[in-house]
């Protein structure tokens, strides 16, 4: 009941189906992986779940209640947070203000938002970056700041869109540990969209595989590893760029 659920979600752009009847459920404290080749519809699904894209058919349900028609800021206020592929930090603002913005967006006073931001910076492990201008941060720090920003207000669910892109194996392992803490300590349900399949297989309780807008496989990591359909979806990709390129210690 206390789940985030995509129920037979379809999205069409000018007749072209980006998603076809996708079902997906994330429970509190669970880490769900969403993988698939480029163009599979992963980000479109995240956009639907967070109110940036309207589903042509189907519904998104939070705790059993439909989120249809809600704007992105209203979805966020109901406890569904997300990060973006490109980071999308407020580049002219210091790191602490990036987190503070979410606090005030959720209705806090500036003082309360700053206080929570300081706690969150410590929790994520980026407190030394607090006064740095976000636009001057290295790529990997940007990702961690984006996660810290999304965690403000202790969301029920966190949707991470390719958080490990461009990270080294060591950095990806640290990210992996952080995501475990988010699910374990905060009880936050995490939907992880990631091209680093090694990281997803090592981290997630349940994995959904999309190809051409449809779910082709869903299950625990062992099922995904053994699936011929998944192998075919990846191996069938022209350049094989989406094959697991980086293994991360689980």
């Amino acid at each position, binding site marked *: 009941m206390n789940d985030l659920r995509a129920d037979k979600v379809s999205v069409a752009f000018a007749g072209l189906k980006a998603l076809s009847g996708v079902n997906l459920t994330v429970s509190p404290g669970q880490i769900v992986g969403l993988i698939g080749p480029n163009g599979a519809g992963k980000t479109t699904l995240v956009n639907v779940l967070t109110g940036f894209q309207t589903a042509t058919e189907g519904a998104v349900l939070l705790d059993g209640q439909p989120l249809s028609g809600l704007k992105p*800021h209203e979805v966020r206020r109901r406890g569904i947070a997300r990060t973006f592929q490109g980071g999308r930090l407020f580049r002219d603002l210091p790191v602490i203000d990036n987190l503070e913005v979410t606090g*005030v967006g959720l209705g806090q006073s500036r003082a309360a938002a700053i206080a929570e931001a300081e706690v969150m910076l410590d929790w994520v492990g980026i407190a030394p970056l607090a006064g740095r201008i976000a636009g001057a941060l290295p790529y990997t720090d940007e990702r961690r700041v984006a996660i810290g920003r999304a965690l403000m207000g202790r969301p029920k669910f966190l949707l991470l869109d390719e958080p490990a892109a461009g990270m080294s194996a060591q950095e990806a392992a640290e990210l992996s540990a952080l995501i475990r803490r988010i699910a374990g300590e905060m009880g936050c349900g995490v939907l992880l969209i990631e091209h680093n399949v090694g990281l997803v297989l090592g981290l997630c309780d349940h994995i959904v595989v999309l190809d051409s807008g449809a779910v082709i496989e869903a299950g625990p990591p062992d099922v995904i590893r053994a699936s011929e359909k998944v192998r075919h979806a990846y191996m069938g990709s022209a350049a094989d760029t989406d094959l697991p390129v980086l293994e991360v210690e689980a």
Partner: protein
Amino acid sequence: MARYSILRRTIATPLILSALLLAFALIAWFVGSRPFNQTVIDIFLQVVFVVGLYTFIGNSGVISFGHIAFACLGGYVAAWTTIKPMMKGTAMPGLPDWLMQMEIPFWAAALAGGTFAAFWALVFGAVLMRLSGIAASIATFAMLAMVNAIYSNWSSVTAATSSVVGIPIVRSIWPYMIAAILAVFVAWAFSISRHGLALRAARDEPTAAAASGINIPRVRLIAFVISGAIMGAGGALYAHSIGLVTPDTFYLGLTFTTLSMLVVGGMGSLSGAVLGVLILSSLIQVLRWLEAGVQVGASTFALPGGVQEIALGVVMILILMFRPSGIMGNSELTGLRARTEKPVEPGTD
């Protein structure tokens, strides 16, 4: 208690700007010349207008061509509420009786003008703030044209395009200086408020701001109403500085001048807004002086009329070419050197 003290970190900016404005007032007071006095009053009024523009444009990033409409609304409120009833009856016979009999002090008219303009900013803004980018800018220009058309044609209430005279003239510089300083403090208070922070975040990354829970049209609307109130109060005081209003007093000329000042000073900076006024007003005064003619030996040297506007345009183009973010960029005056947004490390405050 948060380690960051926003107020302590930023209060220097309005204090420095206020000191600058006070210095101008003191100079005018010591000089004691009436034309110079009027020049300084004009500067203070421009500060009110440009700071009003900054409150919306600087924080939202949406260029508004329509804010002078709010000054027009405020200016006519001053006419409706301060002119002697007999004169109002002649010029504006369509006014309701309660307004016809009203005669309030200039400062009350300024408050009423600000409130009236804020109300209409709320009405217009409820629609306009849903737009973004160039669509929003064009819509604000349409709003300016609509207000101008209404005030130019509603003869029984606004005397149409005729000058509405008889507004009590206030010649003291102090009320204008106080208004300019108040405008600076209101703009500063908004920029450090949670709505100000949210609006600047939405300006820089609207998608991420929405994903952070920010209702972008709402925070834009708050800024629009506050800036409308500042412009309306400024419009009322403008009417009291010259003693008359016409719809064209508050139209394209003033729009161009105030936007130029904001662009030159820096759209993202309160200090830039004030410095833009001081720099361009000084330039305008020098050009006015040259247009009036300067005695050089036996002959008189005079620039042709219209040079002021041309010079404003040239300065604006040069700034846009070589320093698009204006003289101050996104920095603020905080003492010995300009400050970009929040360089202080937490815990050091």
